[in-house]
């Protein structure tokens, strides 16, 4: 069943500013990376590689693209960001703290018993839209939310992060097929292709990723997900395209911004000796981004 896009009673009025301050967004991403290293220093381990890799995209979303307010987390007209990969929580905590959803001082509780900021996401933490972590669950729920918003004529939009590893889950493609069928132009899939999964380098052939999304009826772009200007431009291009859902294939580097971590081969779940975290923070501070 193909449905035409419905009229939006609220119109396309909830747009971000026409120009983005790339330097400011880059600075935000660097601060988020700093937060993540501080978080991981507590338990001495975590999904820091993925977090550092996705930092630029989350900064562009939360500080430019999303129509969203930390004071109104339950606003029915908010744009929604869904983190399908629950283990990227370290990046979500960093951006939500940076946005003021919870105090920066709380970040050191990452992974501790009774903390709200765990190594995966539950929707009981403020700012979290779905339970992530059972991989392949995000995009279908994003499709449902986009349908629900369209049904009531809302101008709010849905942004769903998912990973290259999740492209191996059949449910991802069930959702991709329905997003194309329903022509959900209020839906943006952000596919983080960092080249790693639990068992190491991507274990099955998933390329060419962008061609697959095009074949499923999505307007598709492929960019360097660590190039802030490219991320901002891709989000703007997605916003400008009507009649189809949008896929942005993000090529990102695990550990981005911290050369020692960028060079790590075992990047899926990183353990670092207790004394070394401060050295990694110094590395980050010495980098341009």
């Amino acid at each position: 069943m193909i449905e035409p896009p419905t009229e939006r009673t609220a119109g396309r009025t909830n747009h971000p500013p026409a120009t983005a301050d790339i330097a400011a967004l880059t600075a935000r991403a660097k601060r988020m990376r700093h937060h993540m290293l501080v978080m991981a220093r507590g338990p001495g381990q975590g999904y820091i590689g993925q977090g550092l890799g996705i930092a630029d995209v989350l900064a562009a979303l939360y500080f430019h693209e999303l129509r969203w307010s930390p004071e109104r987390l339950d606003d029915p007209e908010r744009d929604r960001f869904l983190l399908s990969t629950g283990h990227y929580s370290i990046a979500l905590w960093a951006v939500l703290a940076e946005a003021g959803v919870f105090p920066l001082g709380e970040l050191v509780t990452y992974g501790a018993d009774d903390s709200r900021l765990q190594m995966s996401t539950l929707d009981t933490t403020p700012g979290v839209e779905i339970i992530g972590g059972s991989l392949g669950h995000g995009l279908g729920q994003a499709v449902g939310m986009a349908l629900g918003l369209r049904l009531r004529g809302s101008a709010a939009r849905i942004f769903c992060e998912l990973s290259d590893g999740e492209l191996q889950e059949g449910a991802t493609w069930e959702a991709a097929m329905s997003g194309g069928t329903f022509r959900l132009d209020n839906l943006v899939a952000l596919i983080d292709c960092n080249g790693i999964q639990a068992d190491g380098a991507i274990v099955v052939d998933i390329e060419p990723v962008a061609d697959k999304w095009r074949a499923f009826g999505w307007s598709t772009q492929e960019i360097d997900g660590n190039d802030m200007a490219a991320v901002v431009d891709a989000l703007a291009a997605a916003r400008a395209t009507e009649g189809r859902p949008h896929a942005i294939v993000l090529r990102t580097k695990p550990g981005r911004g911290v050369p020692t971590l960028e060079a790590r081969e075992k990047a899926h779940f990183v353990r670092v000796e207790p004394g070394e975290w401060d050295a990694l923070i110094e590395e980050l501070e010495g980098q341009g981004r």
Partner: protein
Amino acid sequence: MSTARTYGKAMGVDEGGDVRPTIDAPFGTALVEAQRRRGDIVGLTADLGKYTDILPFRDAFPDRFFNVGMAEQNLVAVAAGLARTGTVPFATTYGVFATRRAYDFIAIALAHSRVNVKIIAGLPGLTTGYGGTHQAIEDTALMRMIPNLVVIDPCDATEIMQATHAIADHDGPVYMRLLRGKVRQVLDPDTYRFEIGRAAVLREGDDVGIVATGLMTEAALDAAAMLAAEGIATGVLHVPTLKPFDAGTLAAFSAGKAAIVTAENHVTRGGLATQVREALFEAGRVLPLAAVGIPDAFVELGAVPTLMARNGMTAEGIADAARSLG
């Protein structure tokens, strides 16, 4: 053939006869009523709209109906997303596909956060002769293991219609088995009242108690009438809600009885029989119990009446089980 019906008003039960009246597509009819009353329902299916009685809803509210194709994981995920934007999704497929294919989505995307989605599951137990691929023989056992989920196995058209309204008004995830097409009416709609979590005594009788759910409640009533004619006073407790389980009413029903027979359209391992044993044991009641239902085996292809008879899932089979405990 049409027969004038006499209902037992006290119990809310059709007092019998060979032919009970039927209602066409009671689920779809009630869903349309519920949407007219509430205004927030959406309908979904995974390419089984025609076979799950949801087409009346599609025809009445085409903007609010979504067919996701043969993709049961996505059916549940999309329903979860729709619920999170304030609608009340009813998602239909067959029980085998909902539970076996989409289990993780029901557990995590729905139940974990009590997301307000209703899964409507066709072809429960032996309501199809299509064999193990389509007979949901273990679905309610799987579903009742999931925290926060309400699990319902209605017995007739009256109950499906009432339960459809009740689960629409219940804020939380529900798994409900569906009886589709021309569904027999066993319960009197004027006097019976379905309530989530409540078991109902449909017939009093002090010697033996039959505890039944779903399709088998009708056979249980007929079995009780047979046994009564033989001088065995037989009570019938109907348990439409398998979770939360009404252990209190069961304990009261069992008091003074010499034996219990359970009857379910489901495997007896993990289903109603197991729940009754658990609840009676926890209540300190130990008494002879016979379980009527599907054995611990897949069932072959064949005509439904044949399959039911071979597994003793008939009024006569229930009566035999009661006599065996005598």
